[in-house]
């Protein structure tokens, strides 16, 4: 640390960062792991591999995948429209995208349930088609889509805004069709941002609770998500079991974020100047 630095404030900012990460993020998560670890391996394994828990993982992960896939396509489309076109009300749409962040998720859940219930606006329209959303896995997906949509829009939007129009023009002069330009130029350049958005959106969907429990129906083995199962164990004062189930969610999210970070670093290797 004896080297002289141009930027001031390293020690202060590093201290604040470490403090923040340790006390606000790591400590609660550490307590969770500690609680779960007090179970002993056999009990831990029995709890996390019980048929009801496994069914909840399946429901949670599959619904999160479905919601993320939907958001990937429509989030990107929304970002594209907001960046590329000028239309009346664009700013309003832009502001509305952030609303799922601001709205209490329970409120969102109640609103979605009212809409998709048998006698709700959407529910009554979908019923003749034989589609039931409320109290089915489809309802879980809808709630997840709602709460995680902003992630993909907001990660893709700035990258799209910074995309040099000359790149697309260059590809056009070289004879590239719109499809080829999208697949070979735009999509690869957006890929790191898309990946970041997807991983955030997926992680958010894994952990979502408030919006889902109102619309899901919460039938064990059918529409019971992992976060709810952990909550049920809490209400039964079985803190260790709750921590064990929650730790599975935590580890899944952590591994997924770590893997996407690695992939992202690899996807951005062209930014690396070390070989010049």
């Amino acid at each position, binding site marked *: 640390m004896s080297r002289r630095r141009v930027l001031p404030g390293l020690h202060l900012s590093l201290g604040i960062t470490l403090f923040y990460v340790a006390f606000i993020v790591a400590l609660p998560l550490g307590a969770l792991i500690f609680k779960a670890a007090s179970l002993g391996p056999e009990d831990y394994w029995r709890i996390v591999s019980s048929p009801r828990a496994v069914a909840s993982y399946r429901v949670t992960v599959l619904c999160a995948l479905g919601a993320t896939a939907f958001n990937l396509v429509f989030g990107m489309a929304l970002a594209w429209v907001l960046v590329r076109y000028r239309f009346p009300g664009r700013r309003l749409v832009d502001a509305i995208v952030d609303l799922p962040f601001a709205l209490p998720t329970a409120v969102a859940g109640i609103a979605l349930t009212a809409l998709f219930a048998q006698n709700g606006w959407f529910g009554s329209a979908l019923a003749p088609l034989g589609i039931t959303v409320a109290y089915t896995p489809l309802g879980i997906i809808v709630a997840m889509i709602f709460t995680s949509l902003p992630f993909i829009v907001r990660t893709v939007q700035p990258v799209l805004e910074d995309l040099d129009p000359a790149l697309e023009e260059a590809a056009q002069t070289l*004879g590239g069709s719109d499809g080829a330009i999208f697949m*070979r130029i735009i999509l690869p*350049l957006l890929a790191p941002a898309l990946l970041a958005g997807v991983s955030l959106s997926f992680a958010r969907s894994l952990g979502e609770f408030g919006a889902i429990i109102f619309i899901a129906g919460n039938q064990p083995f059918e529409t019971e998500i992992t976060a709810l199962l952990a909550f049920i164990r809490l209400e039964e004062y079985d803190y260790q079991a709750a921590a064990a189930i929650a730790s599975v969610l935590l580890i899944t999210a952590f591994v997924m974020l770590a893997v996407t970070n690695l992939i992202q670093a690899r996807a951005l290797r062209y930014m690396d100047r070390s070989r*010049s």
Partner: protein
Amino acid sequence: MKIRLDNVVKTFDTFRAVHGVSLDIESGELVALLGPSGSGKTTILRMVAGLEFADGGHIYFGEQDATDIPVRDRGVGFVFQHYALFPQMTVAGNIAFGMKVSRVKRSAAEIDARVTELLRLVRLEGLGDRFPNQISGGQRQRVALARALAVDPKVLLLDEPFGALDANVRRDLRRWLREIHEQLGITTLFVTHDQEEALDLADRVVILDQGRIVQQGTPEDVCRNPNSAFVMKFLGDANQLAVEVSSGKALVGQAELDAVNFPDGPANVYLRPRDLDWSSDAPGIAATVMRVIDKPDGRRILARTAGGDNLELDVAPEIEARAGDEGFVRVHRAKVFPSVPG
């Protein structure tokens, strides 16, 4: 491929960028579009490429009316000002792009062979697997050229090709581009705001001002016979003096200049610093030295005439002068143009 622009017009919202420009470019010719910023030169280039559509007039490639042919079918090679290399592709990937997306199917081996050949042409052998971020500005420029040439364009278009490079690299690349042009014989049109670049590189220079062609010709033509005060001033440093013309003569100080076929009345005379000389004896325009700037190839004298006009002179290094000296400016050559109102 011969290119012909016939009365081409382009308006952006309320701003008319190009006013009825007509221009013929012969097959194999290297032509510079030269003008200050806002003169419409880049817009003209982009219309030839098909990146902008003309609001009026026609653009012909050979006998074919290309005005409405979309850019991807126009068969032009375009080198962008900041190169627009695809950052996520290697140098070889960039060069191969046009061949890969082409409707003409080529085998991978064929594409590889062509990429190798182009890398050799632009003298970047061995850099094929670098990313654009890992090479220098001059190298990126050559990659952009190789990429544009890969699709065998009928016309090569370059937008400020050397604008982003430092002076030494510019000069080398200029000479090199001229060699490539002679080797390939491809019709080439480039845009620049730098007169030195245009005169150095082009067979023919087209000078634009406010969306109109003001003069075109060989570098010799435009340098020796500028047809307006704008061209005179744009091509190089020029002193400007207000004069009075009477019976075919303009009087500057005690010196008389020919102003044949000029109506009597006020006019401007333009004098290149090189065309002036300094002497302590008459005849000439009486003046006082204000400052002397020494350069490797001579001296520049900043002088003020008795009438209060400032003159700049480029003189031989042996000429003795220092601030405060009084003497005379001798005029070897000058151009007289009507004084522009305002």
